[in-house]
């Protein structure tokens, strides 16, 4: 193998009551690589992320992290290894304040930081934690809204908060599921700029609907259709392939 893979799948499939959402996908992400996955709605992209991150086990196939089989590894352990994701529909905790959302990721278990910082009996609002949360928020420009109720944030700010959450978990590989969906053009610009700024420190897979947005961001693009990977390669070339054009625009 040329470079080592951080994340790899071998023939993974997922069936829901006989419906095949992901079908025999073999995928490989190199260390430090930024890759994109596109495909029409219902192609199985999110389900594929679910298989990578341990939301549920695949019906068939294996998932490898740095060469190690993690197919049966529960989600929280994968997070411990640095497999971090965001969700297509923004998923943050509305019932917490913006700062509180970040507490659990800055005092992660298995970091050894946990014990030191007193997970069970010391104040989650004390300065060391609060400062760490503040830093994470500053990265996405939300430091001014730390004390706000999360439910009062705009959808775009919630997306930024979710990305801050993901970054503070210190990803080895970050999986972003349609991070621009539901955002205004201005917000898309901000999030894009943010991803560009931080992506050097980890491997990245980004699912996106609009190819144009990520062409400059990723070095490789995969196209999913009806659960299968139908094309892969240099973004600008992939989108010229007849099969891809047919799937995407209904014409070759």
């Amino acid at each position, binding site marked *: 193998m040329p470079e080592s893979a951080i994340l790899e799948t071998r023939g993974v499939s997922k069936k829901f009551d006989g419906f095949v959402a992901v079908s025999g996908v073999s995928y490989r992400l190199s260390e430090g690589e930024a890759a994109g996955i596109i495909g029409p709605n219902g192609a199985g992209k999110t389900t594929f992320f679910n298989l990578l991150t341990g939301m549920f086990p695949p019906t068939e196939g294996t998932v490898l992290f740095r060469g190690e089989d993690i197919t049966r590894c529960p*989600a929280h352990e994968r*997070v411990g290894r640095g497999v971090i994701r965001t969700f297509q529909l923004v*998923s943050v905790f509305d019932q*917490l304040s913006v700062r509180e959302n970040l507490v659990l990721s800055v005092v*992660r278990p*298995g970091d050894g930081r946990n014990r030191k910082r007193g997970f*069970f*009996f010391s104040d989650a609002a004390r300065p060391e*934690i609060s400062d760490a949360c503040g830093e994470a928020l500053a990265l996405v420009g939300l430091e001014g809204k730390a004390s*706000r109720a999360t439910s009062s944030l705009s959808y775009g700010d919630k997306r930024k908060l979710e990305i801050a959450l993901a970054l503070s978990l210190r990803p080895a590989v970050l999986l972003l599921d349609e991070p621009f969906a539901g955002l205004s053009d201005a917000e898309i610009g901000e999030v894009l700029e943010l991803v560009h700024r931080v992506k050097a420190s980890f491997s990245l897979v980004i699912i996106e609907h609009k190819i144009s947005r990520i062409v400059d961001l990723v070095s490789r693009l995969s196209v999913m259709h009806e659960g299968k990977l139908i094309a892969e390669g240099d973004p600008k070339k992939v989108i010229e392939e007849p099969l891809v054009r047919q799937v995407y625009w209904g014409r070759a």
Partner: protein
Amino acid sequence: MKIPWKKYDCLLIVAGFLLLLPFLKIQRTTDFIIFCVFVLSYDLLYGYMGRLSFGPMLFLGAGAYAVTLFSEHLSPNPFLALSFAVVAAAAVGALIGPIIVRTTGAAFALINLAFNQIGHFLVLIAFAKYTGGEDGMSAHFSKVGFFDVQDRTMIFVFSLFCLVLAFYLLKRLTSSPFGILLRTIKENETRARFLGYDTFLYKWGAFVISGGLAGFAGALSIMNYGYVTPSFIDPHRNVEVIFAVLIGGAGNLYGAIIGGVAYMVVSNYLATYIARWEMFLGIGLLLLVFRFRTGVWGAVTGLLASRRGEAETR
């Protein structure tokens, strides 16, 4: 409203119960205090972790029977018996927790109820030889130094100390990262797992803590009353603590204490003025569930917040 009263909340609790003394018999007041410990234990499970249980009486009962049996067979030392009761109730939680905490919603509520019914059956019938069955049994504690369980004032002071201790520990626990984790489990457990937490373990832990604390309340009750009967583990009484948490406002420790006292006042005194008071309680509960979801505490803080024109985060 800039008085940092939360710093003195333990003192406020003490003061509050001392103020009740002129109006109530001391044993009754002690009963109120102990009930508040029970309500606190339930609030951790329901208010913070968001798991509604129909079986907390199991743990109250486990503590009540454990303290009595210990005092009869092993040692009459009240402190040893009390410690044993907490451990026993927590152990029950540790034993059945792995089955229970995997579930949510109605399944969680009903499995708890099922275990409560099993426990009730065990003390009432299966182990009646040891528990005294329907008649129950009395508990005898020895004096330890100046501490005498028979002394009503002593047990009042001791219970109040225990309530303040439980309150303080829970306050620390719920304002820690662990407390935040419980709240994330309540809101979206899957998301919490994707922050790297094995939520199963933490739910189990919270279940055990809640059970141990309920057992603590059960054991204190026996020290206050001097005897145990199956009513201490009766599944029909689960509704009391649920009402109390809803009245005060779930997910808030101050609310739990206000709710505990309010429920006790209502159930003890409304009954003497109004026939079929349970019906009014039922109507009250409907109002709470549909109109004042945040309970008394939430209504008060909400009102104050809107007066100040601020958005409160909680």
